[in-house]
């Protein structure tokens, strides 16, 4: 600001100067003071006097400015001077002063939370929020209260109740009815709030949507996206309406993408990308909008290529592939590569691939090294899905000289094909032999691994021609400095020594065509990103817990808490029922994000899935481990099907009947209660806390609680089901639910166990509040049995 020169030594003079009546000069003094007060807390005291005086000035502008400067000093020992001016500022008859005062309260809260709460400012803000005539004052109150109550909620019962009250019907309707009075930015704030509201009736949903319909025509993209979020969230449970919403929001989104700066269109395009990935069929006739323009930045092109891949279907594939082939000759090499990959992905998801295979083979003849490299990898994947194409492909692949292929991935793909189809490729043993001769020059361990496997396969098919090469390869492999290469060579060697036919069964068994390649992003993650629509999660394609610190999650991020906890549960070694894998199968879209490749050497060590080093194509059959990972992670997913999984998952091999409780409870619980996380969250938000207690846990129980999973199984035996758990010693946190046996009345429990103090704090929320006492007894008795032999 001052060209890097420290002018803090003039503090005293500046304070004198601020006594001026010239408002421009005064503002500059405030600017100076605000800048240097924090580094000179002692001198800051000097300013208090004149700022306080200015807070009582006749001119509302000066009152407001002085109040803002006063609150912006950020000096902790001056907070006592803030309370008075803030109190009168909130009651000022000028709206500018009031808006400043509301933000001032929030600033005070951040300097000293206790001072702010003790002065009863939150209650005053709440009053202003519901009564002030000025929309900006109301909006500021909402922002401030959201922040204050969210951070108070963890320690104060009242604050968390107040936070939930913001989402109550009267408050939400109050905001909705005034929405047009608010500035566009405040509208975003209100819409964000409405997006979290859970209407109780269907008619409410339509009322809200009708009211907000015209917001979709707003020129401000932030307003439109916030409105879309409301629409999507409201209609989640109504499939057909939800689909109509997609149709309705298509045009506004496309308009936003093409108007405004490239940065803004990128933000909107990321959201469009998310929607296209969720429901490609709705956008399949709009594919031309996803064509890349030559002057677009590559981050935009990448998104568009993924969208084009997703929307390809029987009717538009030809045109999309033709367009993609144009990009393959693009000057922008990364995009050219992406385009070729996109063609391959489309080929893998289509039934009629004739034309596409021809195109891919043409790529191989283009004589650009990166095009050839990408195409080889694709042809390899394609052959694994459509072995019937082998004749055509091999003819072309056979003409490629391995000397021209430099990239490890491509080389590995070529070698895999040589091994796999050595019976049809005349030169295969000799090409492999020449590659083995150059073993020393081969820097990529991946290629050497593939070479070992390929020469083995070749050996089984054409032993006399390959024997020499195999010997050389095994010798070179055994001498290799790379651990995996060495181990694989040794393994093959011993296998061959033991029994050649067994070796063949292991290394080169008859294969089934891969029906579908696994997706690296689980549907649970995708659902969470969708829940966080209109946030950075969509741009980064990651749920927020992956990139934000806990304390910065922002208001109302309850869902984060749940999701985060459930991650802890993922690592359980629990067996997964087989039907889950099938149910999950249809979610395994082919959109693979390169970053999150999960294929590691462990998957590739098995010769069976040899060419899958790129991880994007781990053979479904070979990687049951990966599928089971997927299935586990989707346990915590959103859809109702996953709630079944929770039941299945935790119910395995456990007694389902309620265990006899020591004191016969009046309450009978449904042992097969089902509740999906979404409903749980809704209910948790809506219901008041009916009971809050602290129990002590027996030392045996503490000892048994080495991991949260132990307790989960135990409680399951008492028909109390866990929906999320997490934490580490000594603090564990659980969310349980239970259902009455006869009726569908549910109990929700938050339980925090501290093993060092052997205490359990529980909060119970219940549909039927009268029964919560009985439930608490039941819960306590169940908990007290934990750890008993």
């Amino acid at each position, binding site marked *: 600001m001052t060209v890097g020169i420290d002018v803090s030594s003039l503090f005293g003079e500046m304070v004198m100067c601020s006594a001026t009546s010239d408002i421009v000069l005064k503002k500059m003094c405030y600017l100076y003071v605000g800048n240097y007060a924090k580094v000179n807390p002692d001198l800051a005291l000097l300013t208090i006097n004149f700022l306080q005086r200015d807070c009582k000035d006749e001119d509302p502008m000066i009152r407001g400015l002085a109040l803002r400067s006063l609150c912006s000093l950020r000096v902790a020992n001056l907070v006592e001077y803030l309370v008075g001016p803030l109190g009168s500022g909130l009651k000022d008859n000028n709206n500018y002063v009031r808006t400043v005062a509301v933000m001032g309260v929030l600033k005070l809260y951040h300097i000293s939370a206790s001072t702010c709460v003790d002065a009863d400012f939150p209650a005053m803000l709440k009053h202003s929020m519901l009564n002030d005539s000025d929309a900006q004052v109301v909006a500021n109150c909402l922002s401030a209260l959201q922040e204050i109550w969210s951070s108070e909620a963890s320690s104060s019962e009242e604050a968390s109740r107040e936070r939930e009250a913001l989402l109550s019907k009267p408050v939400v309707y109050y905001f909705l009815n005034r929405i047009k009075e608010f500035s566009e930015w405040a509208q975003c704030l209100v819409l964000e709030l409405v997006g979290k509201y859970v209407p109780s009736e269907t008619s409410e949903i339509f009322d809200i949507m009708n009211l907000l319909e015209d917001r979709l025509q707003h020129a401000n993209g932030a307003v439109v996206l916030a409105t879309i979020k409301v629409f999507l969230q409201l209609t989640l449970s109504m499939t057909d309406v939800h689909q109509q919403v997609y149709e309705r929001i298509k045009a506004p989104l496309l308009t936003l993408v093409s108007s405004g700066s490239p*940065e803004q269109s990128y933000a909107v395009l990321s959201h469009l990308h998310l929607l296209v990935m969720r429901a490609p069929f709705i956008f399949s006739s709009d594919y031309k909008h996803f064509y890349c323009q030559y002057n677009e930045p590559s981050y935009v092109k990448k998104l568009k290529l993924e969208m084009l891949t997703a929307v390809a279907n029987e009717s538009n594939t030809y045109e999309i592939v033709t367009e993609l082939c144009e990009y393959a000759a693009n000057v922008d090499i990364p995009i050219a590569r992406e385009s070729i990959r996109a063609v391959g992905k489309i080929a893998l998801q289509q039934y009629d691939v004739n034309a596409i295979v021809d195109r891919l083979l043409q790529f191989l003849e283009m004589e650009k090294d990166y095009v050839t490299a990408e195409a080889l990898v694709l042809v390899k994947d394609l052959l694994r899905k459509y072995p019937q194409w082998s004749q055509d492909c091999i003819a072309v692949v056979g003409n490629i000289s391995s000397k021209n292929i430099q990239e490890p991935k491509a080389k590995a793909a070529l070698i895999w094909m040589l091994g796999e189809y050595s019976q049809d490729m005349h030169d295969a043993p000799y090409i492999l032999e020449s590659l083995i001769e150059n073993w020393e020059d081969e820097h990529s361990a991946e290629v050497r691994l593939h070479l070992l496997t390929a020469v083995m396969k070749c050996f089984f098919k054409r032993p006399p021609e390959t024997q020499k090469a195999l010997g050389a390869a095994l010798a070179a492999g055994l001498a290799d400095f790379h651990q995996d290469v060495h181990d694989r060579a040794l393994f093959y060697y011993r296998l061959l020594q033991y029994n050649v036919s067994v070796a063949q069964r292991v290394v080169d068994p008859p294969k089934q065509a891969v029906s579908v390649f696994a997706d690296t992003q689980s549907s649970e993650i995708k659902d969470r990103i969708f829940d966080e629509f209109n946030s950075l999660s969509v*741009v980064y394609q990651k749920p927020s817990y992956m990139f934000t610190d806990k304390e910065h999650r922002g208001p109302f991020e309850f869902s984060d808490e749940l999701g985060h906890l459930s991650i802890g549960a993922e690592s359980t070694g629990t067996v997964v029922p087989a039907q889950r894998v099938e149910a999950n199968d249809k979610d395994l879209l082919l959109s693979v994000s390169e970053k999150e490749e999960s294929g590691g050497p462990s998957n590739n060590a098995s010769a069976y899935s040899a060419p899958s080093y790129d991880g994007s194509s781990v053979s479904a059959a070979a990687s049951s481990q990966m599928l089971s990972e997927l299935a586990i992670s989707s346990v915590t997913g959103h859809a109702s099907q996953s709630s079944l999984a929770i039941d299945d998952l935790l119910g395995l091999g456990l007694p389902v009947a309620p265990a006899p409780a020591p004191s016969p409870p009046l309450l009978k619980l449904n042992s097969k209660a089902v509740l999906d996380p979404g409903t749980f969250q809704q209910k948790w938000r809506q219901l008041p806390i009916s009971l809050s207690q602290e129990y002590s846990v027996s030392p045996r129980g503490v000892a048994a609680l080495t991991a949260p999973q132990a307790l989960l199984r135990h409680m399951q035996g008492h028909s109390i089901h866990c929906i999320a758990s997490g934490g580490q010693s000594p603090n564990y946190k659980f969310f349980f639910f239970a259902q009455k046996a006869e009726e569908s009345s549910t109990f929700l429990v938050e339980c925090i166990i501290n093993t060092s103090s052997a205490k359990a704090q529980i909060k119970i929320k219940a549909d039927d509040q009268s029964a919560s006492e009985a439930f608490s007894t039941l819960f306590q008795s169940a908990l007290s049995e934990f750890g008993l032999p």
Partner: protein
Amino acid sequence: MISQFFVLSQRGDNIVFRDYRGEVQKGSAEIFFRKVKFWKEDGDGDAPPIFNVDGVNYFHVKVAGLLFVATTRVNVSPSLVLELLQRIARVIKDYLGVLNEDSLRKNFVLVYELLDEVIDFGYVETTSTEVLKSYVFNEPIVVDVARLPSLGPAGIFMQGTKRMPGTAVTKSVVANEPGGRKREEIFVDIIEKISVTFSSSGYILTSEIDGTIQMKSYLTGNPEIRLALNDDLSIGRGGRSIYDYGSSYGSGAVILDDCNFHESVHLDSFEDDRTLTLVPPDGEFPVMNYRMTQEFKPPFRINTLIEEAGPLKAEVILKVRAEFSSSITANTILVQMPLPTYTTRVSFELEPGAVGNTTDFKEANKRLEWGLKKIVGGSEHTLRAKLTFSQESHGNIVKESGPVSMTFTIPMYNASRLQVKYLQIAKKAKNDNLYRWVRYVTQANSYVARL
């Protein structure tokens, strides 16, 4: 909710820096700039407008060669922050008249004053120039536009962005004219960006018009304005596919796929007579954005002919024909064509008597560039380029060069035929000499002919 806002020059200098919440470390501007710079050097193209480094989210937009940046640790709405940055740039431009490094440095006190009113503790208060006028007291120091180099280094920065140069109005909304009296005027600009892709045989593969009606008002007393558009304008294409050409072509009606409006616009009579009613706030703002995929006549036809002349030589003939009325002149035309990577030398041959043509072969990215100052409607221009190769082309020249792309600006021309029929200012007592400017301009967004 944002934590910091700052403006950096292209060299990474901090011109303006405001920390609203103190949650992000002070060195964030440097971290940001280094990241953006190396993104490019690592060959991944431009840095995306949003990225995360160590839990801090950085947002940036490029305006007039400057980087407007916001940081936050919270998971905010990306559109909101980017829109806000763009809006801050616009408010500053409204105040300063011209937005560039020089004007920003000269007016930094005013800019800080604005920033404090726009954002308080990270929350947006207002971005309306109108509202801000009552809170902001510093007078702008007006920078003389004429003294500035027309493009300068900022020009390079602007390339490849879709940003419009906006209106030619470079007058501050608050500064008074030297004469002391403000001129009562209002500017309405219909700006259209057109995207066309021609196939190798000359067919139109895709075409789209993205238009904006921009308004900048210098009227005192905020009178109400009525803006009438074509009577036959219709919006939305019902159940029909957006690319269903033919049915509407030639019928004369203007059919927009979709549009959106500024919040000051009242659409009460829009359904009946296609009239927009609004009380324009001060400063520049888009009244309406629209998008159209209805077929239109492209202003230029591009013809490319590649002839091999021996194993190491080829000739490229580029023809550009202007297919609009001769009363209209396009300007600042640039035709570009990537050539095979093994091209070593290019010699050019223009038509006899050609004026205002520039030709260049960019060695670094092997690109042919042909610039024309002006093209009058109805005329045709040809360029012959003789290429010399360092290796044999094997007849692959067509595959390894192109597509031909073109940028241009055509004033007083609009491809969509959307028109402002009249601009009515509700008369108040003594605003006798009002100036109303309605201007049209069409620019190429992505104008590509494949080989």
